[in-house]
């Protein structure tokens, strides 16, 4: 180290810093922003009556008809999820329309709530909210779930292994799992994987081709309005101002593409839904979401920690440069 000098040290520090920066961050980034205008929906609870007089609300029927070819077709002998002796099999309950299942991607909840001395009968169409920063898509270890540039959050049933983590981190527990179908059945069925997760994709293929989602088109009372997301948000606030109502979906989970407008506070609707859920024969069974107000996004805490990863390389470079300088000076003296 006899040729070591301050200039040489600085030269080497710069080279090593650049090398580590390139190694740790990669060479380039993919496009992060999309020019495609995002779509959304406004659901007006002052208009929706749950299609009284019909056995099944029109939006639910339309959704089932639109997506029937994409519903799961599991094997007959579905293996248990080893080492547990259970699995999620809805194939014997395909006709259920009063909750979310792999065969029913939207449904209508009915509540009777009091507000301002008046009782309201409300019908609440429920399905995926298509969040702005969907934790269900972010945490999927296979990236089988993704928020598309147009806004809908779409699960790729070809690569989903049915771990159901997406459902665990969804504030509403929306995705529904069907066992005995999908990729895991071709790998080591029963030992790893649990099926495929299913949920509303806002009729992504229809949206891509310029059509409206089937539920929107079928609604006889125009209670579900579809369009550019920002227009839907503006419409929701306008409608809430007109009806002295409340909005749900704009702030929840960090923002969503679905804006509900209600004449009663959503805290009351949520409380009533939780009462109904608790009264069910199997209250823990997923597929009957509440409406928790201001619910936080699952990734908020982790995103708050992300800064530490940006600081880490800077700290590493500074500490290493200091240590290298110290040791090399010491060696020079030794020499």
């Amino acid at each position, binding site marked *: 180290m006899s040729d070591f000098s301050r200039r040489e040290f600085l030269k080497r520090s710069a080279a090593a810093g650049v090398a580590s920066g390139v190694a740790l961050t990669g060479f380039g980034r993919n496009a992060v922003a999309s020019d495609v205008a995002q779509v959304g929906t406004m659901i007006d609870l002052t208009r929706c009556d749950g299609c009284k007089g019909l056995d099944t609300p029109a939006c639910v029927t339309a959704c089932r008809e639109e997506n029937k070819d994409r519903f799961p077709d599991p094997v007959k002998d579905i293996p248990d999820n080893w080492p547990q002796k259970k699995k999620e099999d809805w194939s014997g309950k395909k006709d259920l329309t009063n909750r979310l299942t792999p065969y029913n991607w939207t449904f209508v909840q009915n509540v009777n709530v009091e507000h301002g001395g008046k009782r309201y009968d409300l019908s609440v169409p429920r399905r995926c909210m298509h969040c702005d920063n969907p934790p269900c898509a972010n945490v999927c270890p*296979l990236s089988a779930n993704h928020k598309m540039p147009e806004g809908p959050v779409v699960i790729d049933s070809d690569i989903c292994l049915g771990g159901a983590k997406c459902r665990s981190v969804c504030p509403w527990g929306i995705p529904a799992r069907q066992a005995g179908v999908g990729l895991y059945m071709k790998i080591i069925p029963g030992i790893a994987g649990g099926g495929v997760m299913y949920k509303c994709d806002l009729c992504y293929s229809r949206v891509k081709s310029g059509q409206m989602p089937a539920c929107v088109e079928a609604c006889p009372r125009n209670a579900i309005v579809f369009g550019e997301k920002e227009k839907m948000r503006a419409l929701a606030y306008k409608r809430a101002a007109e009806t002295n109502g409340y909005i749900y979906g704009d702030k929840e989970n960090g923002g969503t593409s679905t804006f509900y407008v209600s004449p009663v506070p959503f805290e009351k609707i949520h409380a009533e839904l939780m009462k109904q859920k608790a009264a069910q024969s199997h209250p823990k069974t997923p597929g009957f979401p509440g409406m928790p107000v201001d619910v936080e996004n699952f990734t908020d805490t982790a995103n708050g920690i992300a800064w*530490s990863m940006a600081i880490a390389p800077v700290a590493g470079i500074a500490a290493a440069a200091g240590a290298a300088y110290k040791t090399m000076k010491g060696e020079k003296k030794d020499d």
Partner: protein
Amino acid sequence: MTEKIVKNKEKIKRHGLSVLFVHCAVAISTFVLILTGLFGQFPMAGRYMINHLPGLSWLSDFSVTLSVHYWAAAVLILAITYHIVFHGIRRDFDMLPRKGDMKGSVKLIMATFGYGKEPENDKYLPEQRLAYVFIGFSLLILVFTGAVKVLDNLPDINFSRVFMFWISLLHNAGTIMVIIGIVIHLSAFIFKENWPLLPGIFTGKIDLEYAKRRHSIWYNREFVRKS
């Protein structure tokens, strides 16, 4: 030189504090990342009831495992950056593979089983240099793909579907590569011949006679010629 003979103790200094720090930080953070990655990011803890084991219930709490995963990743990034910059400045590239390392590793392994004579070694064995580059490469894959995943989790950042599919696939493949690398790395200590190297990674010092015998190239270069 940083390498010094510790008089009267028949020990020789093989690693300085920087190497000990980096090895310790990388080992611990990688262990935590694998634990929280396999059992937390992949929802295995609940599925295989690992969360029922005493003290491991937190492994099925995704919010906890994700946060711990992030903190451990920060430690790993710090250690890797430190490692690259420290050795880059010092131009200390003893760990990088050299021509003939594959052949040397085979000879060394054969000699371990009593076939042939072990070749003379430098500061590191050829198989150590190969393992280093394999594990290092795997960790860099994980850091790069992990950084992309962290960015994708932030609000207002949404990479394309195909890009994220490949990033996730690479991240998962990198995890498997690291686990394989660690298993191979640790399995070296099945052989008694490698045991004297163990104290070096905790204290920085190894037995003098062992260094003379097994790392003769390094010993002669650093201690005999310069003394």
